[in-house]
Every structure is written in C-alpha cells, then in structure tokens.
C-alpha cells in the first residue's frame, strides 16, 4: 500500500516543440504540504493540470491517491480539491450558490450538502457574505471562496496553483493562515508558487523546478544549508564594484548571486581563509532558488 498521495516518475509533457515538463519525478507523502517552487514557465501549472488529467502526459507514470492517471483520473478527482491560478468562480452567483454548485459537482450527498456548504463558508470566513454576489466581493474574499470551493467535499488532497498570486501582502498572510490550518489538520497539499516566502513558510518539502525538471527537493532549511550554506555576505556598490566583488568571490571558490542592487556571496560559514567584506546575513531559500534556476529571466 503506497504512502504517497502523489507519485510522478519520468513525466514528460510536450506542446509542439516546447517541453513544458521534462522527466519530472515528484513524491507527495500523505499528510504533508509540498511546495512546487519555480520561476514562470518552469512547468508548475502544467504539472498541476497533469494531476487532474486536464493535460495528458506524453511519457512517464502518474499515480494520485493510489489511482493511475489518466485512466482512473475521475476517481482521483473525486477526492481532490483544486484551486486554480485564475479565478473561475461564477460571478453572477452568490457565495453560497457557488459552493452549492460544487457540492453537487463533487457528489456530496443530498443529506450532507447543507452541512458541507456551511462548513466551507466557515473555512472561507464568509458566513456573513453568503448572499453576496461574487462580483461584489474583494479579491481576497474571492480567493478564500476559491479555496473553500475546493474543500466543500472534504478532499484527501488539495492542489493549490499559485494560491496567492497577485494579492496584497495582508490578504496573502490571511490565506497563509488558512492553508496552514489545513496543513495542521493533516490535509495533504501540493502547492505551486513562485513566492519563495510562501514555500518557506508553508511547505514541509520544497521541490524546485526549472525548465520542466526538478533541480532540487527537500525540506526548505536542508535545501538552504545544502546549496547556500548558513551565511552569506552581501556586497553593495555601483555596478563596477559589484562585478569586481563577484569576480573575486568566484575566483576564491565562492558561489554568488545577484540581488539587483547587490551581490550575495554564499557559503561564507564554510570559508577557510579571508571572508569578503560586506554585510553578513543568514542564507535563505531565495538564494537557493536563484542559484538553481538561474539569474536571467528566459
């Protein structure tokens, strides 16, 4: 009996000449929150669509909740909740009507339907907005409703595709609290994001994707110490000074990354000799992310 809610092996998905997912392996154990972290175009959303059989893999094996995809996808989807990146709520319906529609689509029995809708309203903290039409809700409320809609049938697995993209910091933190509460209840979560702080705060394990491949996987703190060490030195200055500091650090065997206004020199804690001058700081997941996915935008 598998301990994995999601298992992907060697999955490839091509769109014409573009290979969106390129030999991806992914494990999501039951009861954990796994973050798919990667820049735009890394293949995160395609991976999410593969998991609901809205995209069909060209190669590889996919298992979700013990079901083989795409053949048994309908069974798997019955126990999954999906929050899409793009809002696709029925805007002319009320909050409660949206939840009721999805209680039907997810086959919640007639006897349990009212309770399921009430519970979802509670999760979204929208009980006092139940009769409000969706087009009159704020962006944050709509996002909460999208997540609650995915939970109306008490799924075993939740797929969150960029759940906080484009939201204010306050609304983002509100959603983090909601996702964290689900995680604490033991719900299995796969969450794609390109917000590093989001992955670091919420995910038990992070899988960093680049060009359709997994380039690193593990708990956030382990990834940081493995790839960037414990400490970094940040050097500020004009572009010429940054280029010089970067060249010197590399010549001395350090890894570096640009942060726009500065150069970060990594693994300072492992230095045997002179340490470059600059501001010391703890390394973070962003250092790993940029190191592994590249500094240039494709």
């Amino acid at each position: 009996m598998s301990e994995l809610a999601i298992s992907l092996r060697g999955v490839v998905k091509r769109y014409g000449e573009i290979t969106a997912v390129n030999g991806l392996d992914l494990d999501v154990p039951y009861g954990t929150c796994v973050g798919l972290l990667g820049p735009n175009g890394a293949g995160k959303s395609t991976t999410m669509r593969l998991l609901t059989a809205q995209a069909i893999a060209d190669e590889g094996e996919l298992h979700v909740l013990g079901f083989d995809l795409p053949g048994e996808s309908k069974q798997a989807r019955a126990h999954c909740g999906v929050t899409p990146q793009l809002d696709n709520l029925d805007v002319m319906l009320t909050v409660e009507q949206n939840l009721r529609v999805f209680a039907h689509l997810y086959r919640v029995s007639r006897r349990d339907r009212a309770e399921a809708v009430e519970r979802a309203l509670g999760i979204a903290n929208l009980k006092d907005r139940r009769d409000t039409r969706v087009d009159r809700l704020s962006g944050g409320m709509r996002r909460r409703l999208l997540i609650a809609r995915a939970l109306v049938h008490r799924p075993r697995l939740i797929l969150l595709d960029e759940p906080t993209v484009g939201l204010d910091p306050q609304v983002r933190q509100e959603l983090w609290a909601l996702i964290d509460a689900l995680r604490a209840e033991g719900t299995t979560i796969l969450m794609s994001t390109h917000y590093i702080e989001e992955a670091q705060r919420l995910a038990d394990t992070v899988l960093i994707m680049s060009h359709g491949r997994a380039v690193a996987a593990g708990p956030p703190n382990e990834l940081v110490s493995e790839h960037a060490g414990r400490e970094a030195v940040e050097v500020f200055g004009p572009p010429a000074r940054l280029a010089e500091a970067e060249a010197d650090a590399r010549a001395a065997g350090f890894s570096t990354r640009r942060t726009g206004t500065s150069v970060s020199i990594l693994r300072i804690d492992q230095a045997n000799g002179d340490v470059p001058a600059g501001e010391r700081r703890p390394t973070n997941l962003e250092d790993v992310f940029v190191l592994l996915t590249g500094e240039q935008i494709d």
Partner: protein
Amino acid sequence: MAVPVQQPHLRRFELPAVTGVLVREVINYSSYWRSATFAATVEPTIYLLAFGFGFGSIVSTVGGYDYVEFVGTGTVATAVLFASAFPAMFGTFVKYQFQRTYDAILAAPVDTEELVTAEALWVAIRAGVYGCVPMLVAMVFGLDPAWSMLLVPFIAFLAGFGWAFFGIAVAGRVKSIESFSYIIAAVLTPLFLVAGTFFPLDNLPGWAQTLAEANPLHHTVQLVRGAAFGWAGWTDLLRVAYLVGFALVLWRLAIASMQRKLID
C-alpha cells in the same frame, strides 16, 4: 500513514456528473433568464408578425393554409435555432475562453463527454420551451389548437439537442469569437432561409429541394406542421429519425471538438 482511497469504480458516463453540470446551469439561469427569454422568443415572434402580416397582405394562403398559420408553425424551427445553436456557440466559447468555467468543472469528477451532454441537454430543454412561443402567438392570430400540438415541445427539444451540439462543436473549433460570423453567414442563415419556414420549397429548383432535404430545420418545420395540421405517416417518422441521427452525429463531434479544446 493515511489509507489510500477505496471506492467503487466510476463509470465513463455517469448521471450524477450530468446532474451536477445541469444544477450549475439551472442556478445560473436564475440570474439571466429575462434576457435569454427575451432574445429567444421576441426575435422569432417579430419574424412571424413581420412575414405573417407583411406577406400575408399579398399572399392569403400557402399550401391550403392561412399564411399566418403557415409562418406561425414554421417559425417554431427559427425559435429553436435561436434558442439552441446561438447560445451553445457563444455560451460555450465564453465559458471556456473567458470565464474558464470548464477548467473548474473538469477538475471535479466530470469528464468532457458528460460536460458536453449536460450543457446541450440544458440548451435543448430551453429550446423545447422557447420553440413553442411563435406557435402560441400564431394561435392568438387564428391558428387552431390541436391535441397533437402537445408534441411540439418534444420536436423542438429534439431539434434543439442537435443544434446545441452543433453550436458546441463549432465553439470548440474556432479560435476567436469573431469567427462565429462565418458560421452564421455561411451556414445558419442559408439553412434558416431554406427550411420552408417563410415560403414552400416546392417551387425551388430541384437541386435546392434536394439540399433542403438535408436541412434539419426543414424537417423540424415539417414535423411542427404535421403536429398542427395533420401527420404525414412514415415520412414524419423518417424526419424524426433524421433529427435523432443529426443529434447523435453532432454529439460525438461536439465531444471530440471540446476534448481537443479542453484537454492538453
């Protein structure tokens, strides 16, 4: 360790999936029924009144019927077309392209086949109801009621099913909403005009009459006239069979078309 999910095997085509999609449509309908009903009933009724009284003033009878009765029964097919092909084309396109509704539905345990069938079923039910409006208006202007007219909603439903699948199939193929202009101008308008709605087809050239026999709207018109003025025996059964075949072929085409559009 959590136990992997166990449940009975879900079949390829399931009634609860169709019901779920229908529930969504019915609840949504409560927010736009006025405009939908207006569009689907007023336009064919205007055709009926314009042609009925316009041509009716110079043509008193056609094929032995008062012209208003002739047009009143014929425009049932027009109402069905307006209530099925058009909303299916535009509604489907808007739902997958702009609202992304189908992405949400297909993430639930609903497959494309069930989605397409449910969407067309809902359109056909509406067409079955809206299709009767011109006939009811014609009754106000003298069309005699008959018990067999109770079959008209079912004829309209059957024709509406086929046209709904036609609209969905087209929507699944076009790249932009403007492309519907080609379909409306080159396919629907000729079919609508050469259906025997406003004038009998007997005096058309032979080739046009042959083409008209392939027109599902023509068979709809003839079946409605059969219900109103008297059946034509086996011919009418063949017409029903033709509409059933039209719906079945377009059902599979609509599913294939949407499968290509919705599943990468």
